[in-house]
């Protein structure tokens, strides 16, 4: 390089420098263009970090707490389902060196009279037989292993973080009341464990059984295989003696399983980051299309000087790549911040254990790669187009012919949009986490749908703008006309800008429509079904959250004994990774057929409530309607229940339209659950007063009982149950909305970008207007009107598209799984979007309008 002598006054070493120079000369536009990439890459990187963090949390968890374990024997269905009698049988299997049974519980720490909330005060406690072999590989590093009944041993790092030492007292909120424990010792796993704040602890198994009410069962049995013996062979021998309801897996296999169950969450996250990249690429496309138009003479000059098509195209893509590189670097920084926020959200909203961020070079490389790819995808079309413009047309400025969207575009748009819409609806929201494959198809077809939407945008937006412009023209003939004519003359530019809005806002509408439909329908179902006065449940009860400990048996008896108590009946809920008969994850719900109709008014298909309950009492099952359709079972068919205790063939005696678990529900009697799965723990209690007049009295009594003796339990009204469901749905959608918000920001930037281009492009026209006596205010009005027309047109089209997509998707969800789902239009969201449209239009016009108004008429006239 140093040998190169440059002419005086020149600092360019190659043609590439020319593009760089022009980027530097237009810092504002370069910045705006880069923003799309920054957000896109940031989003991708943040999501990649989050996903890999969540996964490594689980891998680390299974790798750490099973330090010495070769095999894990557990119920296929869920925790708490291996009969105690299984343990000696497993111990006797050839090749087994040692076995240890465990009973799990999750407890909140009680400080003073309040139950702590959040992860720092949540303990996962294993009840262990300390006389048995050490399957975890944990070593006691302070104090001693808990021997006496109320001793607990804490994981060292967590204890240090929370300030607990050996000998300290600690009170735990358990289903059977507050348990006062003493920290007997501290232990350390063979490698460090990071559960994002959750703590782990161990206590004698007898204590754990007493606290959780899990007598006679193990949650799991950990097996150490003798040296030199194949774990796989031992696993097969254990399976042979335990029967179909029991599962034997390696710790690694368990970790993989946990990770697999997160696959659909991953895909949702990838999808949203893909959306951000899509919009980012769109911004690049728009911006470079404008660049090409604006620099058409320059391109003509270069062509006349001997630049080939390729050189022009490469130069434009090169410029884009330079921006992409800067954008990607900033995007990585943003991504780390974003991942931090998302991880925090995951912890607090979903209760997922998420370790500290796992930032890998691979994720960074992947994020940069997709950012560059999106950039090239966005810049390629304008670049090729620039190369294709005949030099003579470029030189005479004739290349800026306004293209008009043609029939081919409309057809292509329809051919992408309609199938994308239909298939997306079928797969995207198909039955729960119906596997990553169907989610992938859903995501793919949704992307196809959006591409179709972009292609179709001009055919909807242009007529809308014409319509919106009519009153404007009537009010302000001159400015209104100018604004709308300019938009129509540049149909492609206008619709490109509007398309970014249509896509992003339609997602917001679909999202809002989905959430309001779910919330509304659930509200209706609760209103229709709940005949109970109170629900008693563990704090923060959730069928899907961390495994909760359930309720003490004593609680049911004590509530039933309260003055004014009528029906007090339990509901036992087991989350299953695989419901019997199918493969969907879902809930097995057990109730007392005799008492349940007194607290629940559900309508069953297959007979009167009494008949269905009688059938259930005889060992029958009631299936959620969507689930029954999925697995192809109807009334009278037989479903095989495979529990850890026994296998039983159960007739389908009823069908139920329900929202719970998206309809993936199997209802059985308490007896069936106990006999087949060995589960006897109450999850919730439905409580009725003996008469409506006693309701107030009973309420007071229940609250008092819970507050004094059962700190980990709450009694909630039906209104609160509804609120709880709503909050859960709203929070989940809020999480999506936050991500969608980023896409909306990108769309807004797109509008600002396009509008400022339009001012530059029309500098001379503005000069003429000013020369003819147009006031600054008038110019400003014109720009503002133009901006408002685009954003309002885009908003309305986005709302229309969103309503259409939402309608189709909700109908397909209703038809395929959730027959209880009703369509609700989120009026509030729509109004908010319309207001947002006006605000965006005004905001986007501020800078360009000022710039236009400030133009010196004389300079503008001679502007080249």
């Amino acid at each position, binding site marked *: 390089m140093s040998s190169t002598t440059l002419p005086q006054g020149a600092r360019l070493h190659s043609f590439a420098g020319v593009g760089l120079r*022009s980027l530097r000369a237009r810092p504002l536009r370069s910045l705006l263009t880069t923003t799309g990439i920054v957000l896109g890459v940031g989003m991708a990187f943040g999501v990649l970090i989050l996903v890999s963090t969540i996964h490594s949390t689980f891998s680390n968890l299974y790798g750490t707490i099973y330090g010495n374990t070769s095999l894990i024997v557990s119920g296929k269905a869920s925790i708490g389902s291996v009969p105690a009698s299984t343990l000696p049988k497993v111990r006797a299997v050839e090749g087994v060196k040692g076995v240890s049974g465990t009973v799990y519980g999750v407890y909140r720490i009680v400080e003073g009279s309040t139950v702590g909330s959040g992860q720092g005060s949540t303990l996962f406690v294993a009840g262990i037989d300390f006389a048995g072999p050490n399957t975890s590989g944990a070593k006691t590093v302070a104090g001693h292993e808990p021997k006496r009944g109320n001793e607990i041993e804490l994981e060292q790092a967590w204890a240090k973080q929370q300030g607990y030492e050996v000998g300290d007292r600690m009170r735990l909120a358990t289903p059977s009341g507050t348990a006062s424990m003493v920290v007997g010792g501290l232990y350390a796993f063979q490698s460090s464990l990071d559960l994002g704040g959750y703590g782990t602890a161990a206590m004698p198994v007898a204590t754990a059984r007493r606290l959780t009410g899990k007598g006679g069962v193990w949650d799991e049995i950990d097996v150490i295989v003798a040296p030199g013996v194949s774990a796989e062979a031992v696993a097969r021998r254990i399976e042979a003696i335990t029967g179909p309801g029991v599962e034997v897996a390696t710790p690694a296999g368990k970790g993989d399983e946990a990770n697999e169950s997160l696959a659909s969450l991953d895909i949702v996250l990838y999808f949203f980051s893909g959306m951000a990249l899509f919009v980012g690429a769109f911004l690049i496309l728009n911006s470079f299309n404008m660049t090409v138009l604006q620099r058409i003479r320059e391109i003509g*000059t*270069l*062509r006349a000087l001997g*630049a080939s098509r390729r050189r022009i195209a490469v130069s434009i893509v090169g410029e884009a790549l330079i921006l992409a590189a800067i954008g990607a670097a900033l995007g990585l920084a943003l991504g780390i911040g974003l991942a931090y926020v998302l991880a925090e959200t995951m912890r607090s909203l979903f209760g997922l254990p998420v370790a500290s961020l796992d930032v890998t070079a691979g994720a960074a490389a992947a994020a940069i790669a997709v950012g560059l790819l999106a950039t090239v995808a966005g810049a390629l079309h304008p670049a090729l187009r620039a190369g294709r413009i005949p030099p003579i047309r470029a030189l005479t400025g004739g290349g800026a012919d306004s293209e008009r969207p043609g029939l081919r575009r409309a057809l292509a748009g329809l051919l992408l949009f309609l199938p994308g819409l239909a298939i997306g609806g079928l797969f995207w929201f198909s039955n729960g986490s119906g596997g990553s494959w169907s989610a992938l198809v859903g995501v793919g077809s949704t992307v196809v749908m959006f591409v179709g939407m972009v292609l179709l945008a001009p055919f909807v937006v242009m007529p809308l703008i014409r319509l919106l412009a009519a009153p404007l023209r009537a009010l302000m003939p001159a400015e209104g006309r100018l604004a709308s004519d300019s938009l129509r003359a540049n149909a492609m530019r206008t619709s490109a800008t509007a398309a970014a809005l249509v896509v992003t806002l339609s997602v917001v509408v679909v999202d809002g429509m989905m959430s309001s439909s779910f919330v509304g329908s659930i509200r209706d179902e609760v209103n229709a079904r709940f005949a109970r006065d109170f629900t008693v449940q563990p704090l923060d009860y959730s069928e899907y959250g961390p495994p909760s400990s359930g309720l003490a048996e004593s609680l049911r008896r004590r509530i039933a004994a309260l003055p004014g108590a009528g029906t007090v009946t339990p509901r036992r809920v087991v989350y299953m990774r695989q419901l019997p008969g199918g493969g969907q994850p879902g809930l097995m719900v057990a109730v007392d057929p005799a008492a349940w109709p007194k607290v629940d008014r559900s309508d069953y298909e297959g007979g009167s409530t009494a008949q269905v309950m009688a059938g259930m009492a005889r060992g029958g099952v009631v299936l959620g309607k969507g689930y029954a359709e999925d697995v192809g079972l109807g009334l009278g068919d037989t479903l095989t229940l495979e529990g850890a205790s026994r296998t039983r063939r159960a007739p389908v005696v009823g069908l139920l339209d329900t929202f719970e678990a998206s309809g993936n529900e199997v209802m059985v009697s308490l007896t069936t659950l106990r006999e087949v799965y060995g589960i006897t723990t109450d999850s919730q209690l439905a409580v009725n007063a003996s008469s409506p007049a006693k309701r107030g009295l009973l309420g007071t009594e229940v609250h008092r009982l819970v507050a004094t003796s059962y700190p980990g339990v709450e009694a909630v009204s039906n209104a609160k149950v509804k609120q709880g469901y709503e909050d859960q749905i709203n929070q989940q959608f809020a999480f999506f909305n936050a991500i969608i918000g980023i896409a909306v920001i990108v769309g807004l930037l797109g509008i600002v970008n396009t509008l400022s281009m339009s001012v530059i492009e029309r500098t001379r026209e503005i000069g003429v207007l000013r020369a003819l006596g147009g006031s600054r205010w008038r110019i400003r009005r014109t720009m503002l009107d133009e901006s408002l027309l685009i954003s309002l047109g885009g908003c309305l089209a986005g709302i229309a598209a969103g309503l259409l997509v939402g309608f189709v998707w909700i109908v397909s969800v209703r038809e395929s799984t959730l027959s209880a789902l009703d369509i609700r239009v989120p009026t509030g969201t729509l109004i908010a979007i319309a207001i947002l449209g006006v605000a965006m239009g005004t905001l986007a016009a501020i800078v360009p309008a000022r710039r236009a108004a400030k133009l010196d008429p004389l300079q503008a006239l001679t502007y080249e």
Partner: protein
Amino acid sequence: MEDGVDRSRFGRMAADLRQSADGAGAEPVLAAHALKRAFGSGATAVQALAGVDLAVAEGEMVAIMGPSGSGKSTLLHILGALDRPDEGSVEIAGRRYDDLGDRELTELRGDVFGFVFQFFNLLPTLTAAENVLLPALVNGERPGGRAARVDELLALVGLGDRAAHLPTELSGGEQQRVAIARALLREPTVVLADEPTGNLDSASGATVMGLLRRVVDGGQTVVMVTHDPSAAALADRVIFLRDGRIGGEVEGGDTDRVIDTFRGVEAGARARASA
């Protein structure tokens, strides 16, 4: 990429052309035969060129005059490989190039022709020196090989001390002089100028024309479109276009003679039109 200047097919052609110019010189370096070019279609179709023949000799300066819409710019664009004729052919040193593809035409523009435009068309983000250097960069050369040439050309056009200035810091006349230096950088066979004084005041215009004349006197071939008779008079030969055809021709040198001939062509055309 080799660091060679004349590596392309037409680079060799340009070298051949220069050599053949040293020899014979009788053959026209640039020739057009029966050129026709129409724009648009149907009722709005315009016949810009309706059969034009032209031959330009090596080292000759030819000015093309004519009223607006006479087809003079179209002719220049076709000669400069920026556009293709509908019918007829163009040749450079006896080699036909109207039927070439975009790639070959691109090489031709880079290696054989130099362009000067009415609106200068300098890149606003590049300095004067960089604008002069641009054709080398566009054609993939290393800048070092042309460093001395850029300095020399800027000195030639009298802007040796403005090398580091941006176009916005130069007057119109100075910008056009930079453009002329740029057109000469790669020693083109023919320089094509489209209204080079059209956007300049008369003093700057005269400077620019004087510069072009000096270049021709140094052996360079120049074809120029202009509507300024005094600029045209500096050419060796002035050709008048009228409705897409050559309406007349006159030797340069005297502005009055050029004006008289131009008026004669116009009158003749009107007479034909009214007849």
